[in-house]
């Protein structure tokens, strides 16, 4: 599935109301390590197809979302299930670790 651009405007629709798990990567353009997380997230989206949603949140453009989820460190990846933050990964992770978090 395509990697979605998640914003304050579409968060409710795409994440809170989603009936499949959603993986969200919180990042900023100035954060070097975030650039290494990005292809891993793209790869997960490709591999998992329609079974999960994958999205990215630019924390500079969406400060409220970053606040709401208490993001104080990036990259942070959160897995949402039934609209709730189920698992949080702080810092760069490899694909396996994030996929394991889905189980």
């Amino acid at each position, binding site marked *: 599935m395509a990697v979605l651009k998640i914003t304050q405007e579409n968060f409710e629709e795409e994440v809170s109301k989603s009936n499949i798990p959603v993986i969200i990567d919180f990042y900023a353009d100035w954060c070097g390590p975030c650039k290494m997380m990005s292809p891993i997230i793209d790869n997960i989206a490709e591999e998992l197809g329609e079974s999960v949603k994958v999205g990215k949140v630019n924390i500079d453009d969406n400060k409220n979302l970053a606040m709401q989820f*208490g993001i104080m460190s990036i990259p942070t990846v959160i897995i949402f299930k039934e609209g709730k933050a189920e698992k949080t990964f702080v810092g760069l992770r490899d694909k396996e670790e994030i996929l394991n978090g889905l189980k």
Partner: protein
Amino acid sequence: MYDVIIIGAGPAGITASLYTQRGNLKTLVLYNEKSGLEKAEHIENYYGFENGISGEALYKIGIEQAKNIGVDVIKEEVTKVENNIDYFKIVTPRGEYTSKVLILSTGNKKNKPKIKGIEKFEGKGVSYCTICDGFFFRNRSISVIGSGNYAVSETNELINIANDITILTNGEKAPEIRADNVNIDTKKIEEIIGENKVEGVKFKDGTEIQTDGIFIAQGVAGSADFAKKLGIITNKDNIVVNANMETNVKGIFACGDCTGGLLQVSKAVYEGAKAGLEAIKYIRKNNK
């Protein structure tokens, strides 16, 4: 500019340098003080020494061997590494060096301080990466845990972002640093306190300070510390490499104890050789 800079002068780093220097690459090895090898009293399971050899002696011989073939081997602690896409910048308390390839071989050093609350608040105010997370603490009061050159370097990274910084040495001697908004507290730490995020630090003597964020910079920076800032994937603080000793970041290789697995000289030597050879290929291929 060097072709190759290697951080660490143990069996892994020195072996890599033997290959890169002999492959006509201008090579610099930076090291600091203790290596795992120096702590090994007597090594009897490494090839070629009929009566075994002390780790300290083997370490010194390795450094001399590299110097003898023309490698620059310099004793300076690396406090910061920057990836500027087409070159790397390596910073020590004395100055800066640049290179096309970087090899990490800093040994098996785990720097996480054993302080209650650190793990609980990771991502909730406790950070290991000034360049990733400094921004979250703009104009706030923050702390840096550490007491050496690395702590000073990290404090300098934050000086223009935070309102004020307190260096918490946790019982160690205070480092030298002079800036209007930097304080130093040498008291021993009991725990990090807060509800959902870091709110303060409690000391063993019962006193407390308020702080919004805590950056960890204890001891001498190791490969896992550099990895966090460079975007290198790690697994339990070991650097993840492929069979060619390449990390996920182009131009950065890692070898020896810092990649985990068997923590032995022979494995460090093999990985160093492989990293050196692959570094040569990388530079030739990229026409650098």
